[in-house]
Each structure stands twice: as structure tokens, then as C-alpha cells.
């Protein structure tokens, strides 16, 4: 062992720490031969001795009793507010959770009501004028003067209240395979004016398209804007100019489509 290696173990030797047996023997042997390392080991041992005395002298020291008293008081004052705060915060959490559950329940119920219980729109003929109304929906009476084709007929349209975006539908109508361009009505009620955007339009009254239970629209319905050949007007007994130059023109019409996809009524738009 040389002095450099001795330096690495001198601390552990002096502090009486665990040192490998061979390393310890070699270090002690080296200190016996090297005067400088022997002095170094002596100084380290003396320092360890002094530190041990200091540690032993301070072994009995501890914080005064007043510190414990202060801490006990602090503990007492802190635990009760903490417990109260915890209880308060827990109860607050429960209240918030209950409120959230109630809100969610109301939200779900509202959505179900809006989706499953559509508003009622009643279309009744001028003869009966009996509007069937939904207790929760809005009912609108549409006069239907075409008493010849649909005498004493009342058409009731249930529509969901939700807004519907404009979308394209490809649905076969009751009287032919037509491509419908559906204009969702903006949640308003259906009347003869058919919404604010169509107030400038003049329309005919609704003409029934179905001969079997035309009023059976309990599952809701849609108002669909379509384009038809002019000859379609003649089918409903409406006067139409069938001149050659206007024969190819198409006319706009609103078809009342039931929830089952069948067209229930139609009105022509000018």
C-alpha cells in the first residue's frame, strides 16, 4: 500500500468503520512504515475522538418542554378546524355531486322530452276546426279549404321541437320516387306561411295525399320542399297553365312527410 491508497481508507480506519481485513492490515502496516501517514492516522483518530466526545456531550440535549407544549397546542387547534374543514368540504362535495346528478337527470329528461315528445301541430280543416294539441307541444291549426278532396279531414302533425339543419334526403314519396331537398324548419310552428323565410311566398292550402288515416301522424312529421312538374298541380285539381313554353317548368311544393316516411299532405308554393 502506498500513501495515496492509505489516504482513501484513513477516514474509515480512524472512524472505526467497516474496512476489509486485508486493506486494514496493509494500511496499519503502511502507517508503521510511513511517518507522514502515521501522523495522518493519529490526527484522524484524535479528531474522531474529539467528535465522539462532542457527540456524547450533546447526546442528552433536547428541545425544552415548552416546544412540545406549543406543538401540542398547535396540534389541538389544527386538528379540530381540519376535521371541521374536511367535514365541510366533504359535505360540499356531496352537495355539488347531488346537484350535478340532478342537473344531468334534468338534462337527460329534457333531451328525451325534446326528442321523444314532439310538439303537436294540428292541421285541421276549416269544417272541423278542431285542433288536437299536445299538452307539452305547440299546436298550430292550418286551415284546409279544399273540402272537396278531403272533407272533414284533420291532419295533425307532430314535430320535434329541436332545430334541424338543412339536409338532403333521398326518400321515396308516397306518390312517386322524388328526390327531396329537405328544409328543416327552424323549430317554429307550421302554419300556412311556413316560417319567416317563407312569408313572402304564397302557398296553396295543404292537400291530403293519403286516403287512409291521414291524421295518424303521432310519430311526428317533416315539411319537405320539393320541385314537381307542373302537371302535378293538375292532379290535385288546381288550375294550371299548360302552355307549351311553360310546360317544362317545375313548381315548388311543400310535402308533409310523416314519421313513417310517407307523404301526408302537399301544398304548392308560388
Amino acid at each position, binding site marked *: 500500500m502506498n500513501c495515496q491508497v492509505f489516504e482513501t481508507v484513513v477516514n474509515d480506519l480512524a472512524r472505526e468503520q467497516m474496512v476489509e481485513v486485508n486493506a486494514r492490515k496493509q494500511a496499519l502496516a503502511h502507517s508503521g512504515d510511513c511517518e507522514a501517514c502515521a501522523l495522518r492516522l493519529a490526527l484522524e483518530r484524535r479528531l474522531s475522538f474529539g467528535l465522539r466526545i462532542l457527540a456524547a456531550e450533546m447526546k442528552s440535549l*433536547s428541545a425544552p418542554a415548552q416546544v412540545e407544549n406549543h406543538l401540542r397546542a398547535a396540534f389541538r387547534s389544527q386538528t379540530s378546524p381540519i376535521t371541521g374543514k374536511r367535514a365541510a368540504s366533504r359535505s360540499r362535495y356531496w352537495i355539488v355531486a347531488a346537484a350535478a346528478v340532478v342537473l344531468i337527470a334534468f338534462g337527460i329528461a329534457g333531451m328525451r322530452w325534446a326528442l321523444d315528445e314532439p310538439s303537436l301541430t294540428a292541421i285541421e280543416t276549416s269544417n272541423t276546426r278542431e285542433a288536437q294539441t299536445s299538452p307539452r307541444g305547440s299546436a298550430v291549426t292550418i286551415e284546409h279549404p279544399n273540402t272537396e278532396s278531403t272533407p272533414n279531414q284533420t291532419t295533425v302533425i307532430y314535430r320535434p321541437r329541436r332545430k334541424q339543419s338543412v339536409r338532403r334526403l333521398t326518400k321515396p314519396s308516397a306518390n312517386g320516387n322524388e328526390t327531396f331537398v329537405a328544409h328543416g324548419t327552424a323549430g317554429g310552428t307550421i302554419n300556412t306561411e311556413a316560417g319567416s323565410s317563407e312569408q313572402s311566398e304564397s302557398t296553396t292550402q295543404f292537400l291530403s295525399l293519403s286516403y287512409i288515416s291521414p291524421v295518424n301522424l303521432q310519430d311526428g312529421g317533416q315539411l319537405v320542399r320539393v320541385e314537381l312538374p307542373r302537371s302535378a298541380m293538375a292532379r290535385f285539381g288546381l288550375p294550371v297553365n299548360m302552355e307549351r313554353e311553360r310546360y317544362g317548368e317545375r313548381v315548388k311544393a311543400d310535402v308533409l312527410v310523416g314519421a313513417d316516411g310517407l307523404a301526408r299532405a302537399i301544398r304548392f308554393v308560388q
Partner: protein
Amino acid sequence: MKSDNSSDGELLQAMWAGDEEAFAALYRRRQPGIYRFALQMCGSQELAEDTAQEVFMVLMREVHTFDPARGSLSAFLIGVARHHVLRRLQRERFYVSLNETPDEGSLSSQVFLTTVGPLDEMSRTEAIEAVRRAVLALPERYREVVVLCDLQEMSYGETAEILGCAVGTVRSRLHRGRALLIEKLRPAREEDASSATVKSTRCFA
């Protein structure tokens, strides 16, 4: 009432549940080591008392921050004490106490390492005072290692856990700290003699 046989973890759980006696038992078990560590680090009884109180206040407030998987409660508390002491020392660095300034030229320093015989040749009180002053005069990074390893008699591993460093770092700091202590405890007249030798050597060179 918690007995002294309960483990730190059991006392901690009872304390968290609001058991004051468990807290007191934990305090009595761990407070002396913390107090001594602070006192050996700063040399001020007031600061040591403050540290002991602050450590247990922290334990009261932030007991959830203690993770048994990361180390023992003792190491956690000593770590909190260390941070508190270092913060206070940093704050009070500009204030020098006339009473507690280490006097390296004192008699005890001069006689501690020059006496060839056993330590009883010098006054025990003087020797203790000399070592205490020398430890307090060490830079903080070496002082804390000397305090933990030599005065608190902790292992290298425990010290490394508290300081958050490697065992090798602890060993090297302890080596350097002890060397500095020996330098500080070396008598002034010996230093003068050695410096005079150097000067004369230079003169003759």
C-alpha cells in the same frame, strides 16, 4: 394512548387521525435528533428550538408529503430540518454573533491536536468547545456531512438519503470536511512555524 413500542408509521397514522398522544410520542421519539442536528449545524439554541418546532409543524401540515417508500420518517424529518436550518443560515449570514464567532486562535484549538497524550491532558470542556467551533466554522456542505456521519453517527447511506446525493459524494465530502477540521484544529503556532519555514526556505533559495 399510544405506547412507545408503536412504529413510526403507526404513530403517524394515529396522528393523522387526530390522536394527540400519538403525535406527542412521535415528537418525543424524533425530536432530540432533530434538535441536536440543528444545534450542531448552527450552534444556536434558539434556532435549534425553532427548527424542532418548525419540523413538527411541517409534519402536522404536510404529513401527506411523507412517502415511506422513499425513506424513513427520521430521514424525512432530518431533511426538513436541514432545509430549515440552511434557509435560516442563508438569511442570517449577514448577521455575525460576537459571542459565537469561532475563535481559531483560542487556547483549546492550539492544544487540541498538539497534545501527544490522551485528551485528558487538556480540559475536556476546552476540547469540546474547540471541536464545536471548528465544526461550526466548516462550510455548510462539509459541515452537514460531518454532523450527520460523525456526530449523529449515521451511515453513509442514511446521510446520502437525507442529502439526496450519492454515497460516494458523502464519502468525499466527509474526507474533505475532516481534513478541514484538522486544519482548523491545528495550533496557530504550528502554522506559524511551518509558514516561517517556508519563508526561510524561500529566502535561502
